[in-house]
Every structure is written in C-alpha cells, then in structure tokens.
C-alpha cells in the first residue's frame, strides 16, 4: 500500500476516534476513556503527518511542539477550576490563531494555489480565525477581570461601525476569493477581521459571557474546518465540524436558558427595567432576616433539602463548605440534591465542575427540568449566591427584562433560605420578590462563613 494511502487511513482512524471520544462524554463513567480516545486520535494524526512526504525538515516542528507542549501542560495543571472559562477562552483563541497562520503559510507557500477553490477556503480561514483569536482574547480579559476590560470601551457609532467592519471583511473575503491569491489582500482581510473580533466582543459582559465563550468555541471549530478546506484535509474538516456543531448547540442552550436570542446577546443590551417595581416597593418591611441557629432548626424533621448554588458561591469559595453541609444533612437522613440552572456559572456546566472538585457526587447534581417538579415536596431550599435564576418575576411579569426566562421554582418549596451579602440586584438589575415572600428567610453574610456557621449550628443541635 502506498504511503499516502496509509496516511489517509490514519486520518480516517483519527476522525473515528474523535467521534468515539465525544460519544464517551455522554456519561461521567465513560468520559475519561472518551477523552483518552480523542487524545489517541490526535497523536495518530500528528504521527501520520510527520511521515508525510512533504515534511522534510524537523527542527522547527520539534521546537514548536516542545514549546507548545510545555506551555499547554503548565496551563492545564496550574489553572484553578474557577478560572476554567478564561482557560477555554484562551484555548479557543489559540485555535483560531493557528488557523489564520496555517492558511497564511499555505498562501505564501503555494502560488499558484494547489487547487482552484483554495482561495475561498484561505479567506474563510483567515476571516473566522482572526475574529476568533481577538474575540477570545477580549473574552479572556473580561473573564480574568483585567482592569482594561472591566467596562466596555465606549465610542460613538458602535453598531454601525461593527456593521461596516463586517461588510468590509466580507467584501475583502469575496475579493480575495475571486482574485488570484495575494498575501497583501490576505493581510488586509486578517487586519479587518481582527478589529471586528475586538469590537464584537467589547460590549458583551456579565451574564452573557457563557454565550460568548460557547459561540467562540464554535468559531474555533469552524476555523479549523476552513483550514481543512485549504489543505483538502478531511480530518481537519471532520474535527472542525464536530467542534463547530458542539459550540453551536451549547450557544443555543445558553440562549434558551436566558430566554434571549443570539442576535440580542451579540448586538443588544439588556432591556431597561424602567417599568418594574422598585426595590422599596418589593421589599418594604417584608424581609425576614434569619440566623444560623434558626436555619439549623428548619432542617429538624426535614425529609428533603435542595441546595441551589449560583456563581456567588464560587466567588465566596464556599464549594467545600457546601459539600460539608450536604454531608451533615445526609448523615441525619435528609435527602439532599443540588439544583443547577444552566447559566449558574460563567460557562456551560461550570457549576458542576466546581461542585465535582469539592467532591460532590455527580448523581446529586440535578438539571433544572429534573429538579423543578420536586420543589413542592421539598422542605428546605438553600439558595447560595444566586439571584436572577430564582426570580419568580420571570414567570409572572411579562414586562420584566427576564420575562419568560426559565427559572428554578424554589418559591414552591415549603421554606426557602437565601444566603446573600445584601439585597443588591443580580445581573438583570431588578429586585427579587422571592426575598419578600412569606416562605422565604434571608440569611445575610459571606457565603462561605454563613455555610460554615450553619454546619456548626447543625452539629451543636
């Protein structure tokens, strides 16, 4: 068999391993093996490429792989689980950047192009890759809360400016695709796409970050696929398509969980809350503050308890304290489950990872659709660092900015205890009538300390 056929077979096997690897992720029990299958596929594809007849010099390859592997290992081992969104944003960006560079190298390397449609693929690769790279870097800066990115850059004509940039990028791409390949044209395209990447992500922030990361994840896949078209290489096309589909699905899940359209996240701002009730109207004299001892007594004779964590729990680093609380309750024969809203963390599934790190069993982590029907039979719900995702206004007030957003129906439980520093509003900027409900008690304080005090009070009983 010819060498080139063997290489193609190796690529096919790699693609199959990627698919099987993703399939492994459908259950926590098989997920580790799935990830290893994917890594094996990657190793296979790389080794097959190294023996490719076009590869004649190995110094640069070795240098690049050693530097990249060292940096990647360091990053993967050092990163805190709370910082996973930043890490994924950065990796998205690197994927996009690699696509821009590979397409550029191909353009320089081959004139005339290797095949007639290569120009189209090169421009697509440069366009998507550059938007992904710079967009991801901005997303990284925002998630890492670097000073410069703390608030969006304000400048006039932001929306028309973006539209103009997008138009210019598409025009350049079309020109580049139709005209004979020109490095200068490619450079111009990458430049415009880079600015577009920066300005597109610039205004987005807060609660919308999970959507942006998921979308950039999808873009990084599409960039890889476009590079696959440049090279006429099917393993790149298949992998890129898989990742592109994955990112798109996660984007749509996140949008649905916030009841917002993708266009709204990308171009709109949250609807102003002018018509809604003010904090004074909502809370006026109806807030009941409570203490650790009182909450501990609530659990006396309780049969079922649910804990609803929000990103505030992660900010307070209260995950381990929460796990201790769950264990204490379970040791008294109380059934304990966690209700996880899809946008509870800063990226899809983030809250689950944070709780898994604190050694909460994944069987206790329930999705919104699973946990919602159980709230009427729940004695005590403890909400930690969450606000908008438990705001009943989403169900009742069609004029509210979060109207129609699916929420966790904690208000239907017998008693709700909310751990929060103050009555300050969440991302949506609106008061939460749950806090003033008859069956709700406010347990003010820092998340970690409040939970630890509660555990101590439970043990003293």
């Amino acid at each position, binding site marked *: 068999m010819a060498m080139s056929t063997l290489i193609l077979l190796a690529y096919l096997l790699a693609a199959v391993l990627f698919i099987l690897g993703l399939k492994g992720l459908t259950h926590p029990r098989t997920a580790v093996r799935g*990830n290893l299958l994917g890594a094996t596929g990657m190793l296979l594809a790389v080794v097959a490429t190294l023996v490719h007849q076009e590869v004649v010099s190995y110094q*640069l390859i070795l240098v690049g792989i050693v530097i990249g592997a060292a940096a990647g290992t360091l990053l993967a081992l050092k990163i805190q689980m709370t910082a996973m969104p930043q890490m994924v944003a950065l990796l998205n960006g690197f994927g996009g950047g*690699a696509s821009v560079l590979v397409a550029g190298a191909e353009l320089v390397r081959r004139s005339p192009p290797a095949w007639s449609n290569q120009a189209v693929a090169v421009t697509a690769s440069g366009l998507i890759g550059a938007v992904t790279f710079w967009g991801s870097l901005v997303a990284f800066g925002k998630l890492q809360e670097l000073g410069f990115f703390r608030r969006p850059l304000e400048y006039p004509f932001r929306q028309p400016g973006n539209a103009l940039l997008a138009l210019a990028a598409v025009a350049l791409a079309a020109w580049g695709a139709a005209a004979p390949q020109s490095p200068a044209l490619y450079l111009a395209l990458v430049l415009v796409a880079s600015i577009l990447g920066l300005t597109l992500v610039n205004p987005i922030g807060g609660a919308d970050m999970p959507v942006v990361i998921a979308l950039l994840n999808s873009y990084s896949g599409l960039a890889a696929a476009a590079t696959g078209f440049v090279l006429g290489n099917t393993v790149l096309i298949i992998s890129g398509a898989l990742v592109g589909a994955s990112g798109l699905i996660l984007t749509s899940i996140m949008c649905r969980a916030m009841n917002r359209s993708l266009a709204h996240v990308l171009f709109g701002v949250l609807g102003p809350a002018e018509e809604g009730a003010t904090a004074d109207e909502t809370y006026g004299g109806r807030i009941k503050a409570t203490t650790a001892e009182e909450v501990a007594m609530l659990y006396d004779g309780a049969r079922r308890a649910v804990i609803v964590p929000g990103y505030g729990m992660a900010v307070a680093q209260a995950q381990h304290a929460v796990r201790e609380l769950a264990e204490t309750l379970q040791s008294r024969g109380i059934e304990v489950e966690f209700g996880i809203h899809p946008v509870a963390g800063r990226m899809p599934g983030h809250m689950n990872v944070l709780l898994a790190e604190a050694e909460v069993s994944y069987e206790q982590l329930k999705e919104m659709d699973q946990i919602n029907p159980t709230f009427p039979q729940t004695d005590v719900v403890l909400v930690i660092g969450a606000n908008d995702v438990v705001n009943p206004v989403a169900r009742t007030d069609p004029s509210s900015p979060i109207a129609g957003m699916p929420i966790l129906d904690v208000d239907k439980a017998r008693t709700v205890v909310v751990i929060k520093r103050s009555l300050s509003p969440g991302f949506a900027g609106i008061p939460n009538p749950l806090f003033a409900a008859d069956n709700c008690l406010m347990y003010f304080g820092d998340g970690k300390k409040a939970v630890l005090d509660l555990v101590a009070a439970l043990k003293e009983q």
Partner: protein
Amino acid sequence: MWGIWLLASQQGAGQSMPLMALVTVFVLAIFVGFEIITKIPPTLHTPLMSGSNAISGITLVGAILAAGSGQAGLASWLGLLAIILATINVVGGFLVTHRMLGMFRRKK
C-alpha cells in the same frame, strides 16, 4: 458568499481537489456532531468544551505541513508559530479535560 462559492467551483473544472466531496464530508460531520453532542448531559458541558477545544487543535496537522516543508522564509515561520498555538490547544485541552473528568469519577 454562496454566489462566489458557486462561481469559484464552476471556474475550477478539471481541478485536482473534488470540492463537493469535501463539502459532503463537512455537512455529514456536522450532523454526526449534532447527534452525539445533544446527548451529552449538562454536567459535562465544561469538559465537553475543553475537550472539543483540544480536538479543534487538529490544525496542528496543517501547521506541521507548513513548518516542515523545508522552504526557508515566511511560510516556515508562520508554521512554527501555528505549531506553538495549536500544541498549546491540544496538550492543554486534553490534559485539563482529563483533570476535570477525574473529579467527576472520584468516588468516596
């Protein structure tokens, strides 16, 4: 864009690379992706993102071809830079996913 695409494919009669075959592979792979990924539980969505990120580092294959072509000059240097970025993507992605998934498997 589609018009240009069509135009480009028409003028390319007799080309060596069958564009339609590649497009077919792309479209079918997207369907496979949708089928599998909709079955992945939300609990594993973060590892899915980091793991799929590692997979999209497959661009490394193209980077190796560029850096190893033996041609001195710009193409090789672009290739080197691409290898570094893609390798961080691949190694960092698979490793951090492994680390995370270990937490889910851990039983007391």
